[in-house]
Every structure is written in structure tokens, then in C-alpha cells.
């Protein structure tokens, strides 16, 4: 997932408009886009109504019915402690999605603001922000997240805070790069020429243009956060057990790969599809980022 961070950084900042979308690939991306959206909708709904469904509790241990196959009672069987696999998948979605969406919001809010201010006002402030970003990015995010959660104590709010903080530099970079490329544009000069205040220029002229790349980046950020949360939980440093998280389930399933590979593969597939869906939507949005100058 550390790998994905780099993708985000470079993929978005360096090459926003280079992709030549032939009409055919566009249309294909279109259908995939809707499938991805549908999948995310499904996961969200499943996570939202998980406790209303007539399914067993995700934390009820049944040492007699461990690693049972699918049955009427347990649709997808049970795990190594006899807990209902299907129920754990749904409740796991709740945690993975919750953390995955809330943490990047922190990054978006702080990083987006910081980046826009730095890109607009330039000067010492920008140097300071850019320097700070470089410093934080020098620490491998996973390592930093592990260290901090280990000491803050393992809890879901702590996890969200830490992952959110770690997202700030990346969001700052995106917002700053976008603002930097927009600020010298003549429509910003025009706004200054009519006497608009800095706040008005930032909110009215720049924000609508920075919002779309930031939004695209946010969706990619959700994907990355789900992966990082999964990795931390997989290592036992993320969501505290017995709460079901996809990462924890994969980690536990790994112990019984030889006898019950499905226990690892089911949450793995769920995570893969969700991450893929977020990546797809984010990438589609990214491709749309530059409004083409109209008529030929």
C-alpha cells in the first residue's frame, strides 16, 4: 500500500492531462464506472443495514462449529472461532468503509486548505508548507501509523485520526499543485483587476477549479486508506479485536490457508473489489479533470 501512496502522489500531480482517451476506451470506462458505483452502493447499504438483517452476531464464538461449511444458519460458514463469516464480512465492511471514508476527510479538509493557501499566497508560507510536507512524507506512512497507533492505543477513532493526519501531506500537494497552475491564469488576474478580495478569489475562482481534482484524489485516498487499515489490522495493530475488520479476517484466515483458504479469500475479494471500485471512480473523475476548451 505504500506503493499506492506513491501512485497517488505522482499519478495525479505529474500527468493530469496526458491520457489520450480514445472514444472507445471512454465508453468502456463508462460501463465499468457504473458497475463500480453499484458495487460501492451495495457495500454501503450492506454495511448500513448489517444489524437489521436476520444474521448471527459477528462476535458470537462457537467453538464446536469452527470452520463449518455454508449452511442455512451460516450462509458462508464459520471462521476459526466458529463466528459467522457472512456477518463478519458485513460488519467488517462497516469498519473498513467507515475508516476509509472518514480519515481522508481529515486529509481533504486540512491538506486542501493548506495547499490552496500555500499555492495562492506563495512566499515563506509556501516554503514552510512544502518543507513540512516533504518532512512528513519522508516517514514511511505505514511505519508511522503503526508506531503512533501502538502508543496511542488501538481504537477506531485513533486509527481514523492517525490515517487522516498521514493523508494531509498528499492532499496538500495536490491542492497546491492545482492552485499553482491556476493562479497565474488570466481569469485570476481578472478577478484581482476588478478588486476582488483574496477570500473571494480563493472561494469563487480557485475552489471550483481545485475541487474536482481534490475530489478525484479523495476517492483514490479512500481506496488507499482501506488498504492501510487492512494492513494494520492484518498485523494486529489496527482495529482492536474482536471487532471484525476485513484486514483482521484476512490475517486470521491466513493461519488456515491449507485447510480453509476461503476464510482468507472471501474478505480478500471483498476488499479487492471495493478498493478497485474506488480507484476506478477516482480515476474516471481524474480523467475528466480538465474541461476541454470547447469548439474545434
Amino acid at each position, binding site marked *: 500500500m505504500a506503493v499506492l501512496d506513491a501512485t497517488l502522489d505522482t499519478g495525479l500531480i505529474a500527468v493530469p492531462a496526458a491520457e*489520450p482517451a480514445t472514444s472507445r*476506451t471512454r465508453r468502456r470506462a463508462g460501463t465499468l464506472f457504473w458497475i463500480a458505483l453499484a458495487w460501492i452502493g451495495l457495500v454501503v447499504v450492506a454495511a448500513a443495514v448489517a444489524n437489521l438483517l436476520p444474521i448471527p452476531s459477528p462476535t458470537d464464538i462457537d467453538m464446536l462449529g469452527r470452520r463449518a461449511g455454508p449452511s442455512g444458519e451460516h450462509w458462508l460458514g464459520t471462521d476459526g472461532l466458529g463466528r459467522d463469516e457472512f456477518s463478519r464480512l458485513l460488519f467488517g465492511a462497516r469498519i473498513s468503509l467507515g475508516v476509509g471514508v472518514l480519515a481522508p476527510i481529515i486529509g481533504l479538509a486540512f491538506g486542501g486548505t493548506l495547499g490552496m493557501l500555500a499555492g495562492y499566497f506563495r512566499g515563506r508560507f509556501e516554503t514552510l508548507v512544502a518543507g513540512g510536507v516533504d518532512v512528513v512524507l519522508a*516517514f514511511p506512512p505505514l511505519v508511522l501509523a503503526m508506531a503512533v497507533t501502538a502508543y496511542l492505543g488501538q481504537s477506531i477513532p485513533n486509527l481514523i485520526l492517525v490515517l487522516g493526519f498521514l493523508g494531509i501531506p498528499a492532499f496538500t500537494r495536490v491542492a497546491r499543485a492545482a492552485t499553482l497552475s491556476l493562479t497565474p491564469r488570466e481569469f485570476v488576474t481578472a478577478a484581482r483587476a476588478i478588486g476582488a478580495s483574496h477570500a473571494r478569489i480563493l472561494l469563487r475562482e480557485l475552489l471550483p477549479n481545485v475541487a474536482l481534482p481534490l475530489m478525484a484524489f479523495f476517492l483514490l485516498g479512500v481506496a488507499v486508506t482501506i488498504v492501510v487499515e487492512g494492513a494494520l489490522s492484518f498485523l494486529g495493530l489496527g482495529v482492536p479485536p474482536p471487532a471484525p475488520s476485513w484486514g483482521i479476517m484476512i490475517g486470521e484466515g491466513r493461519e488456515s490457508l491449507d485447510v480453509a483458504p476461503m476464510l482468507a479469500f472471501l474478505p480478500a475479494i471483498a476488499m479487492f473489489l471495493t478498493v478497485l471500485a474506488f480507484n476506478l471512480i477516482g480515476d474516471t473523475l481524474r480523467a475528466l479533470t480538465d474541461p476541454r476548451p470547447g469548439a474545434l
Partner: protein
Amino acid sequence: MAGFLSRRLLGLLPVLLAVSLLTFAIASLLPGDLAYVVLGDQATPENVAALRHDMGLDQPIAWRYLLWLGHVLEGDLGRSFRTGQTVLTAVTERLPVSLQLMVVAEAIGLLIGIPIAILCAVRAGGAFDRFMTGTAFSMLSVPSFLSAILLIYLFAVELHWLPATGYTPFLEDPIDNLRGFLLPAFTLALGEWPVLMRVLRSDMIATLQEDYIAMAKAKGLRPARILWVHALKPSSLTLVTVTGINIGRLIGGAVIVESIFALPGLGRLLINAIYTRDLIILQGVVLLVATGFVLMNFLVDMMYAALDPRIRHGRA
């Protein structure tokens, strides 16, 4: 060039200083008194106070930072209070394992990524391109711990071709060493090649649409020369950056992969330090890793200047 180099080197100092400050802050400001950690649950307040005094924990924090920084600059990163090993020995023992893992992984990633990227860019929009970009995109959504499990399941559990875990030093048995490295390195490479491939592909496509490529064609140059000399060099700038940054970042992936495949590398050292709350080791390793990352970035910048004369001549 010399001026450029010295300017860049000078710029490194504040960054490294900030890195050390942040490392120290993380280690000392987090809750959990080191003295309690060392002494365990049975500590009496007197014991704790005495130990705090011995460890200098009762000093003001700024002073403690300066003291620590002074030691660091002398090459003394401290000593684990659990194993008694100095940070430096612990790191030098494990660094080769992680380095080998990261370099092999990055090399595999480049080996897969570059040819695919070029083939895709040359026939952008074609069947091969669409298939490979789709594959790469999907691979980006597979976290390394997932591919690790998948690879173990396939090659160790089902096929029994390669060992699932275990490490043999290279000098003891090179073949076993490589066999042991194959799965973990491949795991990391599976996440690496799509990144490298996507970056190079889109840069290459952009470059191929430049006027100077049309010019090169109009000059009647051979396609191979156009591709390898005129297109690849200007397209490789982002690739160089990403490769450099990723070698540094692979340390994050190494933590997971090393712990899954039981490789005695830096990642394992780190994660053990976290599990056992071995602050001194943690602080030391984090500092070294971050410093390494900053230096890696510096190297990337230098590579950049070597590739792009415009940067060399100070027109960034």
C-alpha cells in the same frame, strides 16, 4: 553543475533537522512513560523516579532533544533496553536483508513495467494496451498482504515449489537464499510494476505526441532510434522519480512482507520494536529510514538533472 549540487546539498540540512525533530517528537511525546515500559507493572514510584533520572527523562524536553541529537551525530543511536543491542548493530545486521528485498523487488518491477509500458504506448488504445492497463489497474487494488497470501497459497501450499517462509544468508547457500527471496520480492514487485508501468506509459504517450517526435519521423530516423533516444529519455523523468521514491517507500511494504515471510529484515525489527514497545530501537530505525528516504530523494533529483539539461541549467 557544482553550484546546483551545493545548493541542493545545503537545502538538505533543514529537512534532515526537521526529520530528526519529528522522529524525536513522535518517540517522546507519545503517551507511555519509557521508565514504566522498562520496569513493567511492578514498578514502584521510587524505582521509576530513579530510572527517569538515570535516563535523563527528568530533563527539559528541548535539552533532551539536543543531547539525543548530539549522540546521533556522534553515531550513537542508543541501545535497546530489551536485548541490549545497540541500534546500529541491530540495523547493520538486518539492513542487507531489507535492501536485497527492496532492490530485487524494484528490479523485477522495472523489468516487467518498462517493456510493457513502451509496448502499450506505441500502440496506445490497441488491444494489448487496453488489456495491460486494465490488468495494471486491477493490480493496483491488490494490497501486498493479499498478494502475499495468494502467492503462498499457490506456490507453497498447493504447488510446493517454494518455501513459504524462511531465510538463508546468501553466503551460506546462494540458491536457498534466492529461493527464499523469490516469493517476498515478487509480492512487492506485483504492486510495483503497475505503478511504474502507468507512469512511463502515460509520459511516453504524451511524448510521442510532441512535435519533436514528428520532427524525428520527418527526418527519416529509424523507429528504434526515435523510440529509444528521442522518446524514452524525456519520458523517463517521472519514472526516475517514482522509482526512487518507491525504493524508499518499499520499506513500508517490507514491514508486511518480512513479517509474513519471516525474513529478518528492518521491517521485522521495526514491528518487533512496536510489539515490545522498544522505543530506542523504534526511534533509531525510524530516523535512519527517514534519513535514507531524504537522501534517496536527493539522488533522484541528481538523476533528474542528469537527464534534463533544462534543470541542470537552473530553469526548473
